[in-house]
């Protein structure tokens, strides 16, 4: 956090105050935080084993509907698995995919962006070319095709998404690097004999980190949505692992008879993605001197 500060005009206390006044940021942060806590402590929170089936209690409605039972707050699915527990454990998949994809894609994209932006010239041409190629490939389609051939699993999804969705990092980091490249302190470092990697890591990275953070949150939201879509299409997480997209896929033939089977995970995805996006927007607003724009 120290490094960001140097790039921001406002002192930390002021920033805190502005953050607290930023409704979207607070909302997003709160939801994401709660989800992370739930995901980490899932075994202690979940009332049942999320994959233990109990055919005797299949398709129970949630508590507030006729026939609901207090030991199954959100009801059960077609195998009699507790829906609340599945929802709780499902948050793990979403978050793991979100964070891991963010890390892989962030590393690839930022590296490309730094190199292209710092060196410029031929090197930058090549980087731009690579970015162009990536942008021209339909991300979700490629992911679908590859995963259908390799077979879906958590690792495959993370890897495929991570290797595909780095374009925005690259674009943004490259532009940001170009802007800092000619600053005095960089020139000074260069004159002092610092190597290019050293300059990128120690001088440039701190100054573009807030851009990366913003993109990272937005891209994390994208990754969560993509995993849900892939799982919905049957090419994602394998059962019985609970994933929200998979829960919708499994519940969709009951869309009319037991609508909660689709609504519950649908709203969960919506809220988590919304929160992550809000957080990203908030971060961007806070890192800009004029505040929200």
């Amino acid at each position, binding site marked *: 956090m120290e490094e960001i500060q140097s790039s921001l005009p406002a002192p930390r206390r002021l920033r805190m105050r502005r953050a607290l006044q930023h409704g979207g940021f607070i909302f997003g942060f709160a939801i994401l935080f709660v989800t992370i806590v739930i995901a980490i402590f899932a075994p202690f929170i979940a009332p049942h084993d999320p*994959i*233990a*089936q109990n*055919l005797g209690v*299949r*398709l129970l409605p949630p508590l507030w509907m006729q026939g609901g039972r207090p030991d199954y707050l959100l009801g059960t699915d*077609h*195998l009699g698995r507790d829906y609340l527990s599945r929802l709780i454990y499902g948050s793990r998949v979403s978050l793991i995919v979100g964070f891991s994809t963010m890390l892989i894609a962030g590393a690839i994209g930022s590296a490309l962006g730094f190199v292209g932006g710092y060196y410029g010239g031929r090197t930058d041409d090549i980087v731009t070319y690579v970015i162009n190629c990536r942008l021209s490939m339909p991300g979700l389609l490629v992911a679908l095709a590859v995963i*259908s051939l390799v*077979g879906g699993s958590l690792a495959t999804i993370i890897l495929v998404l991570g290797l595909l969705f780095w374009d925005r990092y690259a674009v943004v980091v490259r532009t940001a690097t170009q802007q800092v490249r000619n600053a005095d302190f960089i020139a000074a470092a260069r004159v002092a004999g610092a190597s290019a990697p050293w300059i990128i890591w120690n001088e440039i990275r701190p100054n573009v980190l807030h851009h990366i953070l913003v993109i990272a949150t937005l891209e994390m939201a994208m990754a969560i949505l993509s995993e849900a879509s892939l799982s919905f299409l*049957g090419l994602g997480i*394998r*059962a*019985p692992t609970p994933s929200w997209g998979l829960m919708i896929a499994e519940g*969709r*033939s*009951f*869309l*009319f*008879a*037991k609508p909660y089977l689709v609504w519950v995970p649908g709203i969960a995805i919506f809220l988590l993605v919304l929160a992550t996006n809000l957080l990203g927007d908030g971060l961007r607003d806070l890192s800009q001197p004029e505040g929200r724009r």
Partner: protein
Amino acid sequence: MKKLLKWSTAFGALMSLVLSASAVRAGQSDDTLRVALSRETDFIDSIHTSSADSDLFGTIIFDTLIYADRATGDFKPLLASSWNWTSDKSVEFKLRQGIKFQNGETFNADDVVFTFKQLMDMNNKFRQQQQDFGNIASVEKLDEYTVKLSLKQPEPTFENVLASRVGIWPNEYTEANGHMIHATKPVGTGPYALKSMQKGSSYTLVRNDNYFGGTRPKPTIGTIEIRVIPETQTQIAELMSGGIDMALSLSPTDVTALQGAPGVIVQTGQATRMYFLSMNVAGKDNNPLSNADVRRAISYAVNKPEMVHSLVSPDAAVLATNCNPSQRFCITDVKPVYELNLAKAKELMKTAGYANGFDVTLMAEANIRAIGEALQGYLSAIGIRVRLETMPLPAWRERYIKGESQMSIVGWGSGVTSLDISNTLGIFFNGSSTDYVKDKDITEWNATALRTTDKGKREELYRNTLTRINEQAYVLPLYGTVATYVLSEQVRYQAPVIDFPDISLAGWAK
């Protein structure tokens, strides 16, 4: 202002156009039966492909020599007015007279001979050609309405093939256009003719008003429109909103979602498809499944009735032996049979030296994931830690053929071709790459049965096989599927006794 007026008029006109178009709803009012299928089919005749979906079209466009009565499963005359096995390798067909193809050609012995000649020509590369038609030795026209067919070897199940796949082609039309014409512009003698199709998405068929009737009654509904709707919930939505009248490829699980929906009738019927748990018996190297006691323990650990009745359907058959009771020669009274007995299962695990269980991977097709999960649950009770892998059918098949399966849930057979037990026992006990048991006796018994026409002898051979399978617990037979037929209440359609629907039999309820 003027502009606004002009725009709103245009909009109004557009809206009325749109609304009038939407007035087209399913049903009786325009004498059109709207049917939904889940999968598109590559070809719409039963020769160029072989799938339940293409059979649906093939059945109503073409007539076969022999008709499988949908209410009883008996074989009855259709294009052949009678047939007579003159030896165990040759059969004579007396053909029905006065029938015309949909293009006006007259039906006679030449058409039948032509069709069989095409089936015998292996250069045509029809789907499963060698397997289904490779045994035909010759076909001969005895007179204008008599045909003699000879087989190379006796084949007790040959009539099944005749009744399901062999729709008779008009010789002149086919000769002029090539046999592939039937994949897109089929001409048969059947109760409905293809009027138009948008391949892979919708097909319109119209009634053949000159249909001869008889064993198979004259069709009543004027038009049949078949649409491919891949997602089950969309099919259900269409049924509930009146957009379609009939859905033929919903699973029993999907159908539970429809129970009690107004205006929708759910019927179930017997199917010939069956599922069993395959185990890698023949595999070497530290393979617990090569131990018969382990396999017996597994067989005792599964509560089949609970699993099948709640996950498949209350109407689904729980299998005692490795065949579907709807199949001919499926013998169920062999010993031993396995029922849930956890104490015994645990004891067997101990005697086998696996008191602490072991790890195993179970592969299953994605759409029967629930069954895999249930098995996972049951086997955990005797310490077997199951890693469940579900995948699309082609991926599973690939790995199964390569011998990579430790445990798999295998589904096999459908329609008339699997009316006989030989279809199910076939490739899983014949010493091939799909045979994970490799019991030489069983392979021998099955091969003999396949060329034996004597019913008593066949039954004895299959009894041997089924008994051996259970004694050694080579596989764990699970369940026979249920075919579902979901209809709007406007439609009258009796669920067939075999899962080989003939929708020309459908009519309006009132």
